[in-house]
């Protein structure tokens, strides 16, 4: 089946982002298609690249990025949520004249149209907040 996940939860603050990650890993492992990840609200922090965690803790952002790259998943950070929270991809960083992108290259900043597209193209939309 085709799944899309909408993630509202920031990493580390609640368990929800970690639950979403485990769910995403499990569904691709079972051979389902992950059509799109849509990070919304505080969820955009899951795409932050400039993060450092203690050695004995898991780096959620890193794990998201690895999963996205390994399975070639379309990953969208919602533009309205991302810019005000300082999560910028290359394009947005350049447009707003910041020296460096703060988002993992595996995700792209885009609008809510991509959420609507995901709704229309997925068998299941699952929300994690």
């Amino acid at each position, binding site marked *: 089946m085709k799944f899309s996940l*909408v993630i*509202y939860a920031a990493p580390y603050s609640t368990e929800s982002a970690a639950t979403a990650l485990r769910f995403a890993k499990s569904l691709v492992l079972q051979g389902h298609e992950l059509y799109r990840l849509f990070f*919304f*609200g505080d969820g955009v922090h899951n795409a932050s690249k400039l993060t450092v965690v203690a050695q004995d803790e898991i780096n959620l952002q890193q794990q998201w990025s690895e999963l996205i790259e390994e399975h070639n998943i379309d990953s969208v950070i919602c533009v*309205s*949520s991302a810019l005000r929270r300082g999560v910028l991809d290359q394009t947005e960083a350049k447009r707003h004249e910041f020296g460096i992108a703060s988002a993992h290259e595996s995700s792209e900043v*885009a*609008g*809510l*149209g*991509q*959420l*609507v*597209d995901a*709704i*229309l*193209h997925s068998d299941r*939309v699952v*929300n994690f*907040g």
Partner: protein
Amino acid sequence: MTDKLTTARPAKSSITFISRSAPYGRNRANLCLDMALACAVFEQNVNYVFLDDGVYQLLKGQDGAAIQSKTLGNALETLALYGIESVYADQQSLKARSIDMADLLPGMQLIDNGAISKLIDSSDTVFNL
């Protein structure tokens, strides 16, 4: 909300939004509204239900100026402008909070639990925050 859908799709999807959060204190009411407006822009069938603390969004006379915030009540009046006509307030939630019809923004239809469960049941996708 300005981006175009990458794939044209004739199918209309029935999408129900259950807005369960009070305005201002958290941003969930705004996130819910933004998603619904995006779905309406892309001409989907949108239902919008105010449940639990979500009914506080419907109070007349809100003014975000004092906290440098946009007034959410005004945004709700735009639901109709975006073609969202199926907007409902849960009767039981209003009653539990001692809110009368006279306290509400105009144009609100009341709904009961049975009708909400039917709405959920008949929708393709449900967002609930």
